[in-house]
């Protein structure tokens, strides 16, 4: 089998996996609805209870799970490809930390309890602010290193400000709400959240997809990539803005969900012959599958305790990452 055929097979398998998990996500929940009843209720026009549960609760949750997972996988792969570093991840630019800060401010000031969309909107504002600051800090002709440093600076500042908000929170309940939000979750999200975040994510995906060939060329270093006709300023702008739009929107509706953007590209890289361009699509599908699976898992493991998604991905992700490092080290020797 040629490499291209193997890649197409992998993409097909991942697509089927995402489809299966998407349907499973629709079918699993505390309401305990039957399979055929739930699926037909998805398309029902009348507003009975089952239709409301399916259309207003489970469908947005499944769509967001797939879209946010795809965002994390894709942006992780793009960041690793652009920075040519397997340890890069979507949070590196400070986008998710700043989006979190925006959301936390919305909770802290009480705006979010008056107007519920204030939270994702302020989080998007935080992401926008971060991308402007990172671009300014790193400069127009930024090297990847200055971009990373600017991202670290923005990330630390947003983290510190978030801590400050927690520190100053008027009562323990507000603090708890903030902490719980930051753990990441897809619970109780509505179609409004989908309509608010999905356009940004799609725009981000398109931007990141545009750098695919440039990422392949960057395998040979920046000078060679530039000599092959790729404009590196444009590539960097697309990577930064694409990550900001998609990850900012993802964080705005689901909170910070770690490790998917780091691990999914890692696991899939050997399966796509290490081509950064092929890794983009594969990681998007892989990320969607992992986040859908994780979101099903939190509902199955602890249906009553509202286990947070970010907690689960980190709990599973961190040991897995250690194993991955161990494996790579052994292969290097």
């Amino acid at each position, binding site marked *: 089998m040629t*490499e291209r055929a193997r890649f197409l097979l992998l993409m097909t398998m991942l697509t089927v996996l995402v489809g299966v998990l998407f349907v499973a996500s629709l079918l699993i929940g505390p309401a305990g609805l039957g399979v055929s009843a739930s699926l037909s209720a998805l398309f029902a026009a009348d507003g009975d209870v089952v239709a409301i549960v399916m259309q207003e609760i489970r469908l947005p949750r499944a769509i967001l799970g797939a879209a946010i997972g795809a965002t994390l996988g894709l942006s992780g792969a793009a960041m690793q490809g652009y920075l040519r570093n397997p340890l890069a991840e979507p949070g590196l630019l400070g986008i998710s930390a700043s989006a979190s800060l925006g959301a936390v401010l919305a909770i802290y000031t009480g705006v979010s309890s008056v107007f519920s969309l204030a939270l994702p909107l302020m989080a998007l504002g935080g992401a926008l602010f971060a991308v402007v600051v990172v671009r300014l800090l790193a400069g127009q002709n930024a090297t990847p290193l200055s971009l990373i440093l600017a991202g670290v600076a923005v990330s630390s500042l947003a983290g510190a400000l978030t801590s400050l908000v927690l520190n100053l929170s008027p009562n323990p309940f507000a603090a708890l709400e903030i902490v719980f939000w930051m753990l990441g979750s897809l619970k109780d999200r509505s179609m409004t959240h989908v309509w608010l975040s999905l356009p940004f994510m799609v725009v981000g995906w398109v931007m990141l997809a545009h750098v695919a060939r440039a990422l392949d060329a*960057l395998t*040979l*270093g920046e*000078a*060679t990539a530039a*000599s092959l*006709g790729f404009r590196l300023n444009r590539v960097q702008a697309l990577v930064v803005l694409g990550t900001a739009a998609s990850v900012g929107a993802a964080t705005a509706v689901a909170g910070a969900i770690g490790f998917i953007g780091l691990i999914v590209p890692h696991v899939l890289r050997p399966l796509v012959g290490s081509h950064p361009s092929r890794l983009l699509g594969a990681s998007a599908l892989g990320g969607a599958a992992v986040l859908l699976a994780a979101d099903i898992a939190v509902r199955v493991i602890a249906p009553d305790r509202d286990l947070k998604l970010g907690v689960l991905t980190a709990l599973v992700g961190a040991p897995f990452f250690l194993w991955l490092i161990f494996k790579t080290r052994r292969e290097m020797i």
Partner: protein
Amino acid sequence: MTGVAAPLFEVSGLSVALGGRDVIDTLSYTLEAGTVVGLIGPNGSGKSTLLKAALSLLPYRGSIRYSGQDLAGITATARAKCLAYLPQDGEVIWPIAVEDVVMLGRAPHRSGLAPPSQADVTAVESALAAMDLMEVRRRSARMLSGGERSRVLMARALAQQTPLLLADEPTTGLDPAHQIALMETFRGMARDGKTVLASLHDLGLAAQWCDRLLLLHQGRIVLAGTAQDVLTPKALEQVYGVEAYFGESRAGRVVVPIARI
């Protein structure tokens, strides 16, 4: 044919400032089609900077023309169809297969993520064959020896199929047989009407294989011409600070630096 054709590559009044200092100082030269030109000069004389500026990888003052057309006025992709570049310390970050690295050289000729055309495949095959890489084509480019990797990167530049190749110390890290094989490749390219500008530290290789030499010193070309004109005892003494042994062999002039002065 009427009139005088413009030279293939013409650099005039080129200056490049790095860290506030002119590393290349109002320098001019032309390259004729079908020649191998050696760029020689001591460390820090500006060889790499000159090559990078010629590719617009560094900001420069002055003009760089390809077939009479100012390179500043054409798109990056159009430039990549004219000039290929082989950097000094070539790297392969991800463990991708040798043949896929070589295929990256086809980037300016391809669009989107469509499968490679027949022309792309042919170019890659002949580049792999020219660089003696057929046996390792499926191997990861990171798992090769230094010399093999240099050949992979050279094959990548060959696959770009440009009329002009700018190579930065392409023979560094190669054993003598592969050094000679590479210079033979350059000669073959020149026979096909292509032009190679290669920076070289090995004066012996420069003397034997290049049609012309450009001797660079402190950002200026101090001598240009045939090996006979450029590699003189006086020039080597003044520019490199070395004394050299000059001899004749059946392959031509032999230059071996033997002592510092």
